[in-house]
């Protein structure tokens, strides 16, 4: 019988895929399902032993009545949008520079990539010091050119943008490497043809480079969006969601709800909503950028 299964063209692929599917189920699908199960219960640190009551979708309904959660969604969208625009713009610019100047690129590629390989905690602490009002590098430079120092992390209007800058600094190297690799895959013929037709550099970029980069751009934007939306360690180190919740992203609020407030069911519900938002964004990107590509 086993021999029959292994020899059958219909069943063999499933047999070969089975170990991978089991692994995938145990490390991805099971935690997700368990998380969903927890989100349907009023699980708290105070009832871990006695058992949490089933509450159905109550945690989800509560979420959308919770002003702090809605506020965290707004903060997350600003954070993601700011980081994405900055990372993509700068990353593309650096990728183009490195691609068209291969000589110095070897050295600069290594330098540019340093922020990406650093741990989020180190980045957080480094930026805290750079933003320090009294001793920080950035305020020292501002003073040097006769400008007033800024309360980067203390000011409710500035704190989120200070985090965005730190996140752009960290994430740009990834976009740069990703797009540079994609640039290398574009053949030279379309550029040569465009040159013969008298196209300017801008026209070549606009009508050849960008369209051919679209699949890479779509994947890059999806990854950057998801990572930024889920980012929490740098924020935990730099602002802990403050001042006055000005940097309280959804990921940060999830952490606080589950691990500081002990509301494990509620925290799980936030995680599921975050997952749905991520999935929705991925679909949107593919529909708008991917399809055109």
């Amino acid at each position, binding site marked *: 019988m086993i021999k029959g299964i292994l020899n059958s063209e219909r069943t063999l692929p499933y047999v070969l895929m089975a170990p991978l599917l089991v692994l995938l189920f145990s490390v991805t699908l099971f935690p997700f399902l368990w998380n969903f199960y927890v989100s349907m219960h009023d699980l*708290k*640190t*105070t*009832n*871990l*032993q*006695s058992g949490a009551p089933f509450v159905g979708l109550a945690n989800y309904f509560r979420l959308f009545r919770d002003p702090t959660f809605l506020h965290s969604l707004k903060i997350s969208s600003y954070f993601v949008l700011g980081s994405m625009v900055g990372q993509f713009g700068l990353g593309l610019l650096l990728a183009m520079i490195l691609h068209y100047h291969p000589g110095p690129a070897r050295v600069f590629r290594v330098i540019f990539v340093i922020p990406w390989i650093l741990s989020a905690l180190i980045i957080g602490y480094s930026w*805290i010091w750079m933003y*320090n*009002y*009294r*001793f920080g590098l950035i305020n020292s430079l501002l003073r040097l050119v006769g400008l007033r120092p800024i*309360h980067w*992390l*203390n*000011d*409710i209007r500035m704190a989120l943008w200070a985090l965005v800058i730190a996140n752009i600094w960290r994430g740009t190297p990834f976009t740069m490497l990703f797009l540079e690799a994609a640039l290398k895959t574009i053949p030279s013929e379309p550029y040569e043809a465009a040159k013969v037709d008298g196209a300017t550099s801008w026209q070549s970029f606009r009508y050849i480079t960008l369209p051919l980069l679209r699949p890479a751009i779509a994947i890059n934007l999806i990854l950057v969006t998801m990572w930024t939306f889920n980012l929490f360690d740098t924020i935990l180190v730099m*602002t*802990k969601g*403050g*001042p*006055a*919740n000005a940097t309280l992203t959804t990921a940060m609020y999830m952490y*606080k709800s589950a*691990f*500081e*407030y*002990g509301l494990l069911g509620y925290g799980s519900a936030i995680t599921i909503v975050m997952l749905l938002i991520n999935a929705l964004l991925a679909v949107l990107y593919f529909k708008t950028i991917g399809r055109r590509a």
Partner: protein
Amino acid sequence: MSKRIWVWSLMVAFGLSAVAWAGPVVVKLWQSEGYGLEAVESLIESLVPGVDLQVVEYPYNELRMKLFTTLAAGDPKVAPDIVMVDSIWLGEFVEGGYLAELTDVVADEAADWFDAFRNGSQWPAGSGKYYGLWYDTDVRVTMYWPDLLLEAGVNAGDLLYWDTFISACKKLNEALAPQGIGGFRLDMGGAYAADFFFFPFLWAEGGEILVAKDGKLVPAFNSEAGVKALQFLVDLVKVGGVEPQLDIFWGNDWAARKWAVYIHGNWATSESRFPGTTAAERMKKVAVLPYPVSEPGKVPVTLSGGWIMTIPAVVKAKAPDRYAKAVEVMEAFLRADVMAEYASALARIPVRAALMEEPYRSKLAENIEFFDFYSKMASIAKVRPAIPQWSQVADAIFEAMQKAIFQGVDPQTALDEAAAKVKAILGG
């Protein structure tokens, strides 16, 4: 016959060596990093023969979740025998059924303890049901460098009242800025800011954080006292030119003379921040004062934190032998002479009256700077309510502080908004 004697002799010898092999009973104790029970480990082992005390440390932020996940398993094999819980976690742990009731073990002992710590070891507070004993505390005070005050032309007496405190901060900032020294450090990096900069002022004005109403706790911090306390902080920043700090170095930067004045825990004046110095030497370098009050005649209040020594419920329920040994260890630790040894080694403030008397007082005063002052502050200290929702309540109050200080929101409005939030958190 002789064969039988040989066999019996061998069996007895094996039996004895097996007993010897069994060795001492291991008692595992979990504590937060830096709360070094190991300072009295050998003393306790000598007082409880046959016990090998093993102290395991976890970073503060990890300990709470580590305890929850371990104790929730309900398996005595993985549970420690004795645990130290932060006093503000007590309600959450008791409500969750993680801690053993220890009234019969500690009630007599507790009679000698200062009110705040005796009540704080009970759940609900003041109910007479003990879940451990508050063995370790600190007090928060105003601390300053006298020479820096002198240099800036500021009188130490100015630090006693709110209005003169504000003008002193301004003066200190202006005079010491060229040297890169700040006047006054105001920590605003996390919810702990309220412990240092809001609750003591609120209490001194006669306010409370929460009060019981119809058998339920309701917010009370948005009272007139709370508004006055928060307005003082706003004035410190707006009028006194104090820059709120988002990072915290737990007194290390003040001890390194980066700031002239600081309101912080007594650990900031201890040997841990001034390595290689004696208490007498530290008392010559720095000075301490009670919290400033709004006007003469008002009595300053301090906030005390600390740790409660307790035993997991699963050990009491499922491993009675281990529970009995853990109780023995706990009783040994709670002896006045052992506590004096511990407090002296780690510069902790006593939580019981007996340690303020001889023969312990001299020994403690030798190692703990400003011992009499700190002990008196501890005897009148107030503590935070250890309710399960405390971290949410503390966050809401801290948010109000931030709104008033950073966003310019009127203190009454900020506190009212926080009170509404807290009411909902408490199920109101």
